[in-house]
């Protein structure tokens, strides 16, 4: 594993983040948007672990942070899915563009 350079992990993370961001900004389905968010979070996780590995494996700061992010991502997914279901019940669609009640 040591022969894979750090920068490769960062490339992977950047690609994953880009894919996730595309999902968040471009997809109309709320579920897809949520999936994009998950991808972005995981890209961040990869960065955390990669830096932890190449910098100071003895420090648990990076891995612990990742555990927190995963936990929060799960909670966030639960809340977000509940909101999406609620929106779907109201509008009979999961299209984020249809939910624009707060337009000025």
């Amino acid at each position, binding site marked *: 594993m040591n022969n894979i350079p750090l920068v490769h992990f960062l490339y992977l993370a950047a690609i994953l983040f880009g894919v996730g*961001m595309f999902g968040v*900004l471009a997809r109309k389905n709320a579920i897809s948007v949520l999936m994009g968010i998950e991808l972005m979070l995981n890209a961040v996780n990869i960065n955390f672990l990669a830096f932890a590995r190449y910098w100071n494996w003895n420090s648990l700061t990076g891995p612990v942070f990742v555990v927190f992010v995963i936990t929060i991502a799960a909670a966030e997914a639960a809340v977000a899915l509940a909101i999406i279901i609620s929106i779907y019940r109201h509008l009979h669609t999961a299209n*984020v*563009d249809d939910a*624009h009640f707060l*337009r*000025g």
Partner: protein
Amino acid sequence: MIQYSWLIPAMPALAYVLITIFTKRSRVLSASISVLTMTACFGLSVGVLLDLLKLDPANRLVTFGATWLQISPWQANVGVLIDPLSVNMLLIVTFISLLVQIYSLGYMHDDERFSTYYSYLSLFTSSMLLLVVSNNYLQIFVGWELVGLCSYLLIGFWYFKPEAANAAKKAFVVNRIGDMGFLMGVVTIGMVFQTFDFAQVKVLVAQGLANHTLASGYVAGIAILLFCGAVGKSAQFPLHVWLPDAMEGPTPVSALIHAATMVAAGVYMVARTYNLFSADPMSMTIVAWVGGFTAIFAASIALAQDDIKRILAYSTLSQLGYMIMSLGVGGYTSGMFHLTTHACFKALLFLGSGSVIHSLHEQNIWKMGGLWKKMKITTWTFAIGTLAIAGIPPLAGFFSKDAILEAVRDSTIWHHEILYYAAVFTAFLTAFYMFRLFFVVFTGEARDKHSFDHAHESPISMTGPLMLLAFLSVVVGWLNWPGVDAYSKFVYYGDLHLDGATSFIQLLTQSWLSIVVATAGITLSAFFYYWKIFSSEKVATTFKPLYLLLKNKYYFDEFYGWIVDNILFALSTVLKWFDDEVVDDGMVDGTGWVARKMGGLLSLTQTGYVQNYALVVFGAVAVIFLLVSF
């Protein structure tokens, strides 16, 4: 006793609170609280006088106080200043108020709002006492405004009568005009001297004038601003119009307003701030001429009035003119002495007219007549009051009025000789119209049989004060008995100055002119209205325009009405247009319009599309990242 003098204004104020909150239901309790506190105040005032007399004449001045508000660099104090002038006023106010309150027990007996009446009387007296004991300009202004408020409440006491409600409003509004000047004067004093204290201002003015850092014309300007207040409160020309209308209030209130409180406040204030007035001849000249003009002007109106209280009201205006004129020509002592004697006989005359009105329920003198048969005490006391105001020796009015005439004659003011002859002529008119009133009301035969049959002498609570005041109207003048001069040695400004007369006979010979004019006025009046040798109707028809002019009070009410209707309303219309179009539509609505439009523009950014927001967030992060990196 002097250290307790702060209780004198405080006690009636407390009585007002007690009556208003607790004893409104009980007429007896309310009246007794009011009368008892006033008795205590009078007793305390006498005690203060005795204490003051023990002090050396050169430094009879005690002052103390506490901080009320501290607004740097100004400090508003509340305090007490006891000197001969304020003690003089304390005695007048508490004594007259006490008698008026006792008198009202009978006069207001049938009134439904008896307790309220007594609470107002207490507050009125308290305000006046607050003004009198004040040791600074701010407190005198507070008392001044409270007096104005109470006069409004009492003149409009019978507010269900439209005339009373209007008269109350008129008194209030006219007083506001004068008070505006007074307030400006007080504020100017605060700005120039950084203090409101009488004693400190006096020292600063004296210093400033001595080392030429303060122009005397500047002090005169302040004095004239203050004098505006006195013109309003003491009903001097041209703000005299409210006082005759104030007759709509209960008669004892008129007595209180005319004799002791309210109108005396203006004269007192000029005397209190005399160092400002005497700094420059210009302010003195204005004061003297306003007073002198008011004296003769009001006396001429009184000649043609038919309402018993209106005649007395114009006589008050005229006598107040005397006092103001006296102060203006430098006759400080004579002005205050006339205030003192006038308080006695004017209270007597008003309470006497109240007794007549109480018995007849009529105010037109041409429906009265022959009342001496029914009302012996009222007639005798009224006769004494009339003689006193006419200036017949040895009654009170003679001493004070003659002192004023002497002061005018000996003054050096601009054209004082004209003022002197005007004052002498006013004395003649005073004797004439007062005896016209007396002869028409009390002598001859009854003109209105019906009301005459109902006439009866008033109860002892009313005649008692009358007799006491009649006694005083005779003897108060003797304070300045030639050779004794007790009053002149007590109340004076600057150096002690006594007139030359050392015996009564000498005084009589010196003042032969004022005795002659008074006697002439009475005789002429008797020719017209007692012996009826001359016919007043004939004179009235011969000089019809003049008669109408006097009867309609020189059309001043109409003139002011015209000013209000035309000039003021025209100005108001312009201002209303400005307010509607520019202020409301332009500025107020314009502010709202701008805010709404700005909000509309900004709300365009709120698309409601969540992905737009996310894009902005990511874009912003990217921009920040780029900015930080390069």
